[in-house]
């Protein structure tokens, strides 16, 4: 099984001042109270595996993704600044800093993100080319064409060995971000590890099974899994409806329905599997992995996920609030319990700490003592 990332040390990232986690396993389940930093740890893993400007912005915007009203929520600059721990911000020097250290594939390294905020003059005519609101205001002469605005000037450095990155040097160079910056989908630079992040409600909007259906064996296994939800299911595929590709579920009476008509539990299972399949030899991060799954389906779904992860050498990092989900995963992992880690995060007086239990210990403590693992 995959154990690509074995240790992590996170400094000054969001609400985490300093956190060290050692002895990570193939499957890692983060538990703990609200606001202890579970999702932040997943983001830190995303960042260390792919320390690029594009990924930094993408991570910063992840928590704003589901806002349908674009006038609410943080702008890009504020999202970036929220990545930095407020207590570590050096006001005198106007200095922002994040460091994430880790051991990845037996290589020890770290990434540093440094920056400062300065006022810069920008030409709003350039912004108007892609920002309709600014264009409208300029056309109505409500605003000036030039404006001085706060701009984050940052730099990402990585100490991971050069052969893990296809760069001339280990520095990503300086980049600038202000409130009008766009997330440009540039050709993403090679990463240290392939990572896929599944957010809590991604099963509602994300692609569910494009990778699963590419492999006949996987597709068959996925259909078997879906029978846990509906025995009549016989196939999963896409249909072309006037150029629109719609994921559908076919049943044994040759009827089919769009996947969107089915319950969230099924979609959640598929999207998790799809993610694992898409990052062979990489890492999958799943926030609140039990969301939408009914207790009766959990054990089978988890067993399937563990089997596929093992097969494809994928390391899993999961978060949950549900002790039931932890129990079901431990039960389903009879052969692999020693590879599981339950990582309890706790925040006290502003300090975050981690306690790591291996799967065998956790299983024993739950079974024998009904011991609470989340606190």
């Amino acid at each position, binding site marked *: 099984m995959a154990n690509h990332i074995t240790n992590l040390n996170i400094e000054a990232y969001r609400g985490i001042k300093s956190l060290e986690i050692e002895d990570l396993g193939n499957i890692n389940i983060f538990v703990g109270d609200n606001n202890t930093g579970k999702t932040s740890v997943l983001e830190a893993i995303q960042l260390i595996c792919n320390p690029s400007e594009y990924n930094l912005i993408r991570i910063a915007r992840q928590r704003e993704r589901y806002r349908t009203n674009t006038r609410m929520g943080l702008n890009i600059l504020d999202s970036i600044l929220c990545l930095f721990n407020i207590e570590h911000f050096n006001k005198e020097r106007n200095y922002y800093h994040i460091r994430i250290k880790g051991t990845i594939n037996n290589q020890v390294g770290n990434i540093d993100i440094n920056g400062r905020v300065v006022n810069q003059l920008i030409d709003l005519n350039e912004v108007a080319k892609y920002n309709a609101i600014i264009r409208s205001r300029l056309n109505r002469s409500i605003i000036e064409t030039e404006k001085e605005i706060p701009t984050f000037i940052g730099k990402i450095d990585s100490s991971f060995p050069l052969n893990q990155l296809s760069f001339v040097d280990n520095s990503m160079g300086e980049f600038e971000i202000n409130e009008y910056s766009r997330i440009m989908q540039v050709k993403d630079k090679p990463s240290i590890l392939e990572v896929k992040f599944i957010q809590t409600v991604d099963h509602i909007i994300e692609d569910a099974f494009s990778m699963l259906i590419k492999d006949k064996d996987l597709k068959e296994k996925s259909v078997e899994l879906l029978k846990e939800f509906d025995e009549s299911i016989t196939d999963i595929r896409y249909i072309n409806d006037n150029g629109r590709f719609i994921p559908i579920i076919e049943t044994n009476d040759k009827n089919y329905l769009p996947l969107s008509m089915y319950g969230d539990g099924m979609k959640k299972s598929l999207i998790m599997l799809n993610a694992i399949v898409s990052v062979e030899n990489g890492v999958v991060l799943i926030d609140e992995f039990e969301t939408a799954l009914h207790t009766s389906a959990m054990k089978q779904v988890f067993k399937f996920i563990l089997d596929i992860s093992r097969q494809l050498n994928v390391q899993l990092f999961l978060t949950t609030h549900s002790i039931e989900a932890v129990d079901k995963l431990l039960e389903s992992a009879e052969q692999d319990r020693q590879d599981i880690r339950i990582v309890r995060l706790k925040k006290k007086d502003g300090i975050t700490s981690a306690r790591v239990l291996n799967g065998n210990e956790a299983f024993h403590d739950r079974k*024998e003592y*009904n011991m*609470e*693992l989340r606190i």
Partner: protein
Amino acid sequence: MKSLILCEGFDDMYILGYYLHKTDEWNRKNDIKISQLYDFPKVHFRNQGIEVYERGDEILAIWCVGGKDSFEESFKFLKRINENHPEEGFEKMFILTDRDDLEIKECLKVIEYQMQKCGLIIKDLENNHCNRLEYEVENEIYKLDIMPVIIPFDQTGALENVLIEAIRCTCEEDKLIVEKAEEYVDKLAESDIIDSYLKNPRQVLKSKFSSVISITNPDRSTALFNSLLMTHPWEEKQEIVKHFKIFNEVLNKISKTYME
């Protein structure tokens, strides 16, 4: 504050519970749930049991483990709980055990060995004394006070020796009953005809004790033994107080040593 008393058998559990109820107003709870964060392990054998007492917001659990070789499960439990939930764990642990034929030092070595096997590393335990173990959990230091109580203090034997001695010292009448009961059982044990009973010193001792209890409770010949046991005011008997004083002192933090 949570405290734990480990003992070998049900008689130990009942006597202690009774004594602490009478002397320090510990009241038995109907259920044994002491925390939202964990439960006691299920009792697997007939000779094991757990009772929980409360006094204000203090909790005292008395766990009869079913024999002097069976303390390890409880040591493992305490270690897991104190490591994972130190703020809901136990601050004090008493180990009440019979000396049998050994010297007290030997018994202490056995307890130390069992504890070390379970990861509770402590050396040079002293009997009838508070031994402090400090441990670290997530950069905070916690303490566990361990009190072995190996009885009797002054001779080899078991709890029954202490109870018999306690009755013997009550008055002339009780002294005579004890002496005659001992004579009677000893004579039977020496008889060539008796083959099925009184096969070892432990059975002989228990029979002596049962005889004394039966004689002093003639109207309750068919009552449960533990209810006969409770007819004696043990808390008034000097021999009992001498051996159980440490429970009062530590649980009430009376002595300066135990308060540190």
